[in-house]
């Protein structure tokens, strides 16, 4: 019988609500604050493995792949793993990474709610029938609506109305039938385990009302039971930004976090941008929430917290309440813009303004800086090609490599600053000069 590895934490340093630690999970060891990149294609995974090998990237602790992308991104790699004549695994970058990195397979079931992603599960193999059926019926309904020329994306009519009803019905069935629910949880946790995830994420819904919040708590509790036969299981919550205005729900969330013992708790706030001018109440409540997480990690040192799809909070909240933070290569922006509307030239992450710049703006900054790239990350300082001479593919590889090595550099600096007791001052200084000034309220 197998015994899943459990997560333990060695706290290293603390400064205010910021902390750095060494997190152990079986043979794996991660330094926090840890950055986890979201990967959605095989090319990005290859690039990640290449960069990890080239620059070591101690604070880039792993990657997260959405379940709908996982077969495409990881499936082939896993089946390509070779054994030698003695039956030992042949060491390759992927195998080494799969035994040392924090790999998360995110069910991302909030996508069942959003019209742009609800069809994602239709073409994915080895998923519970409930998910593929949901996606297929959505695609069918969408084509029916299209034929009727009735696609009006308002809450009252069209596909949105159909999706709201379908979403409610889907989760209601799981709420009422414990056997269907347990099978659904088991199948998704086993799938994550098969894909090599050392920490499993419960298949929770996007919380749009109190009922789904209760269901999320139930699924978290049941997942932790089911995971006894699979591996270490996290608690997970996926919210919309409006939850930060709902003080009673936040209070209940605090109570739940206090009562539970999950060693890692994941939060996802969909499409959150706390830098917007009018998000004053949300910022205040988020700051209080960070303090709750800090208090919890002080009382129980083996508790860790992770923010998925952190977006522009990836710098301000590193080590502050959250031990691990994750964004995609483009700061989670691709979710907001349809693929067709995107420029083929990837955006460059400006470390000083903390925002992404399109290629033209980057070229301006580059020329104004005396034809030097205005960044001191290893990828930028060792780049031998002039940015203007890079073709689309090379450019896109360059901006991704820069993003990862930049995050590693920032997180390494934050960890050192926590050690020397200057993290808060350092982060305040950096944010003050950036385009994310409003996030200062979270830090000060």
């Amino acid at each position: 019988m197998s015994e899943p590895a459990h997560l333990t934490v060695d706290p290293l340093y603390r400064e205010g609500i910021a902390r750095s630690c060494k997190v152990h999970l079986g043979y794996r060891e991660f330094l926090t604050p840890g950055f986890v990149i979201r990967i959605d294609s095989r090319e990005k995974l290859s690039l990640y493995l290449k960069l990890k090998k080239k620059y070591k990237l101690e604070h880039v602790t792993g990657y997260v792949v959405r379940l709908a992308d996982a077969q495409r991104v990881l499936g082939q790699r896993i089946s390509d793993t070779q054994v030698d004549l003695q039956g030992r695994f042949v060491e390759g970058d992927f195998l080494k990474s799969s035994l040392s990195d924090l790999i998360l397979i995110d069910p991302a079931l909030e996508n069942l709610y959003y019209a742009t992603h609800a069809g994602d599960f239709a073409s994915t193999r080895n998923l519970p029938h409930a998910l593929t059926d949901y996606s297929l019926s959505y695609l069918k309904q969408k084509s029916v609506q299209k034929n009727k020329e009735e696609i009006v994306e308002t809450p009252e009519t069209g596909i949105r109305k159909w999706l709201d009803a379908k979403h409610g019905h889907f989760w209601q069935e799981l709420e009422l039938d414990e056997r269907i629910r347990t099978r659904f949880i088991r199948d998704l946790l086993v799938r994550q385990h098969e894909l090599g995830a050392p920490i499993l994420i419960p298949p929770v819904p996007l919380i749009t009302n109190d009922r789904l919040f209760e269901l999320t708590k139930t699924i978290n509790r049941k997942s932790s039971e089911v995971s006894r036969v699979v591996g270490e299981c996290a608690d997970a919550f996926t919210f919309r930004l409006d939850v930060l205005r709902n003080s009673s729900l936040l209070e209940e969330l605090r109570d739940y976090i206090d009562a539970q013992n999950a060693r890692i708790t994941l939060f996802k706030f969909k499409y959150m941008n706390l830098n917007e001018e009018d998000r004053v109440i949300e910022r205040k409540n988020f700051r209080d929430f960070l303090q709750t997480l800090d208090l919890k990690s002080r009382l129980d040192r083996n508790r860790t917290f992770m923010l998925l799809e952190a977006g522009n909070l990836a710098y301000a909240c590193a080590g502050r309440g959250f031990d691990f933070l994750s964004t995609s290569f483009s700061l989670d922006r691709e979710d907001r813009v349809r693929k067709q509307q995107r420029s083929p030239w990837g955006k460059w992450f400006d470390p000083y303004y903390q925002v992404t710049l399109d290629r033209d703006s980057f070229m301006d900054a580059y020329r104004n800086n005396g034809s030097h790239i205005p960044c001191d990350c290893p990828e930028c300082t060792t780049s031998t090609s002039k940015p203007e001479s890079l073709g689309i593919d090379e450019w896109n590889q360059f901006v991704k490599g820069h993003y990862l090595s930049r995050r590693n550099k920032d997180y390494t600096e934050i960890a050192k600053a926590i050690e020397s007791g200057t993290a808060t001052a350092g982060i305040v200084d950096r944010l003050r000069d950036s385009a994310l000034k409003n996030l200062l309220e979270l830090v000060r």
Partner: protein
Amino acid sequence: MFNMSLSRASSILSFNEIKVFSPEEREQYVKSVILDLLSKAERGTTIAQVSKVTNFNRITVARHLESLVSIREAYKKQRGSVAVYFKNGRLLHEADKFEIRVRDKLYAYYKLSNEEGDFIYIQEKTANPTRTVQTLGGIMIDVRDFHEFLKGLSRFGITMKAEDGKV
């Protein structure tokens, strides 16, 4: 003797829910739950008590408890006609534990304490390349006897070496 909070008991999967597991997963789940309960019952527990809290069949509980005793994860004391099961000691200190890897085997050494005294507990595990570990068996040696045990072991090793030169 046995104190289990209601909330803990309520999160245990019902019989109906466990039915979705494969037979192997079911065995593993039941073992894990029982081990968890044992570790919480400092003064020991009985088959009937575990069965009551978990709603698992008494025969299933008894089989798992005996299996845990056989690999030294638990030990049992006969009190009249009732067998009371205890989790096999608690780690004296986080540092009182280390593991060595020999080829595909993992040997874990623990210094444990229970009401019978202090023990050295050696577990044999297999290290699975897919990052899970399987316990194959274990031996408990009273700390007071450990020196004698080592002497016996090395004497046995020398005899083996003399016989075939393999050790």
